């Protein structure tokens, strides 16, 4: 039992830092932060990672993975988050790619994986439906086989960045006769196919990132089906585990907490820094202590995986606790911004508004409320943990 860094680890850390210094430039950060240019910024960042060979560390090496040790994964993520660089968009690299690698055929791998690596495709996820949220398996969007094509009718909701995507991976119903988990099929659909329309959903953070996607007699070639018809639920479930690990965002929470600490240090109330306010310090350190624990819960899971073992029961907590910590940080930051947390900056400059992070704090807070809802709501996570880990 140890967490020492070896010489190789330290060399790797230096390499990561150099890469970030050279590639995660302030210009690129600004491009990503601006809503109008965000998509280009993210794609540019991913292309730089691709050139370095780091866009998909967790993939098998033959497809472009890095074969990093747990320690290297930990180092990369810590450094990336500390520098403020974003994770790669998960819908392609993490989500659909995992399914394609595990269950896709060789043609699908050859067709899709390289384009994902190079950020040539923007993927979105078509799982939830208006009537099927936490009860995902009750989905109703139909796919009827017609020759060598499926005809899709129905709609998907809460589709993040569907407005940017040229591909969507969907769970669709090919059979309604048996258990609801059966008869679900996993399809890859070109967003440019006729019959697809995208309706934006305005969210409480004022952004447009969610959408509803409608399918009206959309024809999808059978070759775009992953694996067998009716086995989509099994494929999707294996992906949920991956998603659960990635949602914890421990390294990013560490950076966020450091930022809040420094913001609080600069806030002065009646001559005293907010950081010296004991109730504030209590809330800040409550979160920090939980986060310190969570960081090692994640490392324990990663260490298990690296040894070829299943991650231990503690991994089921990562999504739950990770999102609780994220939300606690977001809430704390709102309170640091005090009455400014209620302001909308709109087109004003920070100088005009009189505050430089309140608007971001407020948007992150409201956007962050979603993290305990998506990816299997936290209530569903608790049900799963009770059933599969505690045996209840």
């Amino acid at each position: 039992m140890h967490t020492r860094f070896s010489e190789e680890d330290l060399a790797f850390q230096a390499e990561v830092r150099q890469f970030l210094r050279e590639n995660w430039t302030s210009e690129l950060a600004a491009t990503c932060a601006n809503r109008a240019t965000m998509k280009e910024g993210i794609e540019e960042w991913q292309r730089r990672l691709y050139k370095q060979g780091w866009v998909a560390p967790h993939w098998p090496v033959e497809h472009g993975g890095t074969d990093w040790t747990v320690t290297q994964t930990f180092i990369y993520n810590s450094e990336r988050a500390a520098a403020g660089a974003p994770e790669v968009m998960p819908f392609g690299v993490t989500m659909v790619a995992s399914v394609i690698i595990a269950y896709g055929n060789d043609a699908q791998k050859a067709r899709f994986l390289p384009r994902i690596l190079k950020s040539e495709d923007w993927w979105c996820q078509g799982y939830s439906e208006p009537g099927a949220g936490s009860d995902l398996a009750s989905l109703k969007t139909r796919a009827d086989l017609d020759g060598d094509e499926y005809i899709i009718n129905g709609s998907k909701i809460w589709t993040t960045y569907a407005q940017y995507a040229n591909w969507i991976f969907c769970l669709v119903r090919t059979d309604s006769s048996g258990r609801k988990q059966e008869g679900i099929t996993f399809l890859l659909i070109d967003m440019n196919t006729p019959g697809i329309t995208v309706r934006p959903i305005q969210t409480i953070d004022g952004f447009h990132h969610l959408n509803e996607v409608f399918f009206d007699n959309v024809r999808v070639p059978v070759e775009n089906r992953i694996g067998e018809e009716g086995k989509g639920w099994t494929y999707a479930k294996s992906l949920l585990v991956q998603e659960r690990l990635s949602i914890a965002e421990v390294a990013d929470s560490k950076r966020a907490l450091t930022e809040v600490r420094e913001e609080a240090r600069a806030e002065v109330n009646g001559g005293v820094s907010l950081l010296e306010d004991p109730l504030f310090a209590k809330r800040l350190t409550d979160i920090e202590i939980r986060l310190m624990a969570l960081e090692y819960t994640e490392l324990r899971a990663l260490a298990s995986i690296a040894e070829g073992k299943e991650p231990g029961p503690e991994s089921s907590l990562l999504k739950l606790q990770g999102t609780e910590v994220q939300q606690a940080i977001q809430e704390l930051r709102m309170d640091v911004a005090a009455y400014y947390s209620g302001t909308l900056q709109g087109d004003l400059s920070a100088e005009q508004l009189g505050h430089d992070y309140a608007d971001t704090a407020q948007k992150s807070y409201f956007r962050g409320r979603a993290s305990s809802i998506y990816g299997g709501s936290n209530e569903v996570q608790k049900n799963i943990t009770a059933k599969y880990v505690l045996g209840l």
Partner: protein
Amino acid sequence: MNFNLSEEQNQIRDSIARFVQENYAFDQRNAVVALEHGFSEQHWQQFAELGWLSIPFAEEQGGFGGGPVDTMVLMQEFGRGLVAEPYLATVLLFGGLLQAGASEAIQGEYIPAIIGGELQGAFAYLERQSRYALTDITTTAEQKDGKWIVNGEKTVVLNGGAAQKIIVAARSAGEQADESGITLLLVDAGSAGLERTLYRMTDGQEAANITLSNVEAKAVIGSPGEGYGLMASIVDEARLALCANALGALESLNAQTLDYCKTREQFGVAIGSFQALQHRLVDMFGACENVKSLLYRAVCAVQDGTEDAQRSLLALKVMVGRAGKLIGGEAIQLHGGMGMTDELSVGFYVKHLMIINTLFGDADYTQQLFAQLVNAAPQAGSAAA
């Protein structure tokens, strides 16, 4: 001891409830908030006609002569409907300061104008750096040639866009955070040297940052250098009213969430049938009842003038902040994806409650004031009387 409303108070409550029902459906509210300054001038005139703008003013000034219970009833119903009109800023803060500290001449001119719906006002007390320390004021007031000249910047002034007259808290003496040396000045929004930067709050209301460059004040409210006591007492009244407003919002949010849980189905049953959610809904109900009990406690203590008043008021503000976070968070969570959208009113209620938490000191700040008060000395036992 009783917790019943008078017949008159029941009538006020019912008439506001009717107004809300007729004018504040989801789309109607969105349309109101989209108007210039974020509220409806037409509604405001209606308020004047219905006498609502007169409630807290003394009868000799043409008011209804209402007390804290009357204001509570009104603000609670406004909160239930998320009514956007600036009652707090114009009637309670601006009007309250005038009634408590303005000269008879100014009272005679302005208060009837407020009651008649012709005058919008605001109270500019915050600055960029002040956070919750009401005394932290760098805007200056100097007397020159018998006139008061104001220089500085006030921020997040609620209703600062529509306000025709503004009362500004400025420093005429003392150090930056001293209680003494604060002077309240009445200025005309159209004064030379006064500039406004307008923006919206998350719940739709409008606020302004106001810069003052050698602005000549029309009058001093209260005594020069002794504005703090005046503003502190009006802020206490506003705290009580705000908390009543919060209770209405909390009750509405709980009712909306409960309804949703009874109708939304997942796994073949209403989600309200899941025991884990039921227990959380009970906690939400409990938080709301706690606010209600403390509101009744505080309003009675203020009205009856008992020594429990300040303690109850601070306790209430703390509970409102905490209950707002709990109920707001759960309301979004239990609405699931729908709670994340601007297609339901849930988000607006949550935002309004979060703003209320930050007004005049958030829960953590207010709790420390409360602790200082109650821990100061060994306490007498009794709560009431």
